[in-house]
């Protein structure tokens, strides 16, 4: 098993937005989807997970609606709103930018200066 990765503050929300952007999901589905994509390497604190979902819904980035799950259970399905889509795009761009810059700096070797 590969080493688990700890999430930096604030990134969980971004991951949830991404997971939801890939298709309609209920809460547990989002959790599974993130773990699945990350190759089971992310250990998500359960308590903070739902907090993040509630916050995203409150800000109007995702929208929850009751529906039937695969095994005929009632479940609340989340979808990305237009505002959520914009926010995810902006956050992704910001994250990649930052990651590139940080990675660039960390990769620097003496002779490159």
């Amino acid at each position, binding site marked *: 098993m590969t080493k688990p990765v700890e999430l930096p503050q604030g990134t969980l929300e971004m991951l949830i937005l991404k997971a939801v952007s890939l298709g309609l999901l209920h*809460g547990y589905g989002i959790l599974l989807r993130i773990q699945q994509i990350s190759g089971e390497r992310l250990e998500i604190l359960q308590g903070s997970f739902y*907090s993040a979902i509630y916050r995203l819904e409150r800000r109007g980035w995702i929208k929850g609606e009751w529906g039937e799950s695969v095994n005929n259970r009632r479940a609340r399905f989340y979808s990305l709103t237009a505002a959520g889509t914009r926010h995810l795009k902006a956050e992704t761009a910001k994250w990649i930018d930052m990651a590139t810059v940080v990675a660039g700096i960390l990769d620097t070797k003496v002779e490159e200066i």
Partner: protein
Amino acid sequence: MSLLAAIRKLWHSVAPRTHSDVEEEFRTTLDAYQEDLIRQGFPEDEARRKARIDLGRPTAQNEIYRDAIGLRLFDELGGDIRYGLRALRRNPGFAAVAVVSLALGIGATTAMFSLIYAVLLHPFPYAGADRIMNPVIIEEQHPDQPIWFPLSKPQFDDLRLADSVDSALGFNNAQMEITGGALPEDISGIYLTENAGSFFGVRPLLGRNIEPYDAENGGHSVVVLNYRFWQRHFSGDPYIIGQTLEINHASYTIIGVMPSSFAFNDSTGVGDVYLPGSLMQGLFNVPYLAYFPWIKLRPNVTLAAASAALEPIVRQFAKEHPERFADHWHLALQPIIVPYQQETGRTLTLLLAGVVLLLIIGCANCSILLLARGRARQHELAIRSAIGASRWRIVRQLLVEAVVISCTGAVLGVAVSYWLAKLPLLLSPDSFPAESVIRINAPVLAFSVALALLCGMLFGLVPALRLSRADSAGMALGRQIGVVSAPAKHRWSVLIAAQVALTLLLMATAGTAIRSFLQLMQMPLGYDPANVMKVGIMLHAHEQGEWSRIQSREARTAYIEQIREKIASVPGVSTVAVGTDTTPPDTGDQSVFNIDGTRDREQPQARVMRVDQRYFAALRIPVLEGRVWNTDEDARGDFVAVVNHAFATRYCSSSDTLGLQLRIPGLTPRNRYQVASPQSTAPRQIIGVVGDARNDGLDRPVVPAIYVPYTAVMPNYVQFFVRTQGDTLAYLHSIRAAIASVASDQQISNGSFNGTFTLNEALKQDDQYSRQRLFSILFGIFSAMALALALVGIFSVVAYSVAQRTTEFGVRLALGAPRAHVLWIAARIAFVSTAVGIVIGLAFDSFLGAVLAHWMQSAFAAGNLFTAAALLALSALLACLLPARHAIAVAPAEALRHE
């Protein structure tokens, strides 16, 4: 949308998802996770347990939800409030004392605020009331007596069309009679220019106001009713519009009823009915064919600019009618609030200061109670802080508890204030505008809510900061040991000292008020008001035929004399005198006179009183020198005068008073109802000097006065002064019958202008009398409340500290401490701080004495202060000793068993 739906909608926007919604979603997740775990091979029990450990309990999910959407603070405050309420319920004694202390203060302050709001900030119901002005003439010689002036219709139009004037209202008061019923009834009517509706901008309660088209064809015969008149005369009949009212034998159609807040006009007499001004032209019953103006300035025109613009117009009037104006004068525009502002403003400021003091004392009391109770709660707070409550969290909780107390107090206080605010109006009705309606409205409510929150913060903060600074371990231990004496520093000792000082201030003020009221009551009047009643009658002037019978001076004198004799023949009536406008303590017309043979640069002035020769006997005013005129001289009216002692000392010092000749140029008819004797302005010989009777109000010295026979100038009304044996009012019925036997339709007046009441009642209507009475009663109440609050504060501090230190006292007694010593220890701190408070209060009061004396217009006597201090000290001693007694009643064995 109903209120409930609105609240639900608002709540939905704050917290969009319901409790069960959040819980159900979480349960699905929990179930799904549990199934996954079972699939991974966990036994069902284990899976269930692990799911809950990993994800949490469904019931806790709502808290997470509310926290996530930012409702946490709200929830916690809600919890604090619930806890605070529960704490109040658990301690009903404490709660009652704290809530009542605040309710008194908040109630009194809210009442005073609503009074100030109604009287000084919003006294008039008229549109643009702050722009409505009384134009008055200020004579250079008497700048403190502004004079109203009447205008003819063309003059009024000149003024109305002036540049700075938005609109102008002309009015003219007239006495009228309702006829056609079984008995005629005196009423007061006011003719208004027909722009009244738009000028006032007050929506009539029923029907409509007088409108410009009512001026057509010499004026429509229509009438608008005053609310009180409508209530009194028509019992508030809602279908009154369109009915007719017979006034002075002519019928008028009722077109409107004004609301209760409309009482035009308090200065010249509130009208019972309002009529179109154009009617005046064709009628007989108006003394002046003239208008008194009220002008509404254009917005943004300053008072000075408007006065400057109007002055030339009035100067022109003065040229046309030089006899109506003095030599040196200027025009002033007086906002209609001015007559009330000075005296009433002063009264209200003083009362407001009183209630604010009361409020501060109430707050201090709550602080003391919280601190005292806090010591009993230290254990609880220590545990809270030990299990992780931050200091801010504890402070917040204590503050919320304080605000809960203050809000409960405020609710009670506002309820009480509704009643309290009416008290000053009941006690001193003439000091306030008739139109100010006291009600609990939005600004008043906002004020009291703000006040409650402020008070809560104020009195809660000191205890909260003090108690939250607990060192948790020490506190928890301290309770166990008990013998360790409480922390030496007592915040509440400062508070008690302050409270006592303020209470002393209030008590001294009350003492001063009561003392000066008593002084006022004991002031020599110069006449004897007991068992004398003033009975006013209006002579019938509304019909040409009736009027012509009493129009001549001789016929009128005979008519009045006939009535006088009839009243005098009533058994039990000892003296009946006649006078016009001579009801003490404020009597006569201020008039210019000159003494023959002297040349004064300043024109001497005196009160001119028109009375008959029996007036002095009826009022028991002593004749000091010479004599009073006889019956013949009384009928003639000319050539004689009697002066008062003040007149003789002021104007006749150089020579013998008797025999001097004086002339009163103003003794001429002023309107078409008045008749004068043939030579009323000719020289009159002073034939007598009488004692000084109050004639310029109760509190001011007697001014020079000249008495002349009432037949010199006779208006269309007269007053009889009836001295009886025993209670005068008991004779009212027989007097009424006596008058009716002369003329069956001759009614006696009930109005404020020429009404019927005893001279003692007249005394009570005096401004100074009613104001001083108001001060003594209200400050008496305030200081009694303050004293009660301070005593409760002292009592509870001692009681709490004795309860806390039971063990200590037991040990002391067991070890042989004398009882007196233990008593002293128990009461010491409260006692010392009370003493300090009294000393501070004494120092403070002597400093404030001068300020107060100015505001109350009476001397601030040191005697009051020491009496108050002694009373306070004595009662404080009792409040200390009563609870301290419990300290020596402790049985040592029992106290030690507490260990």
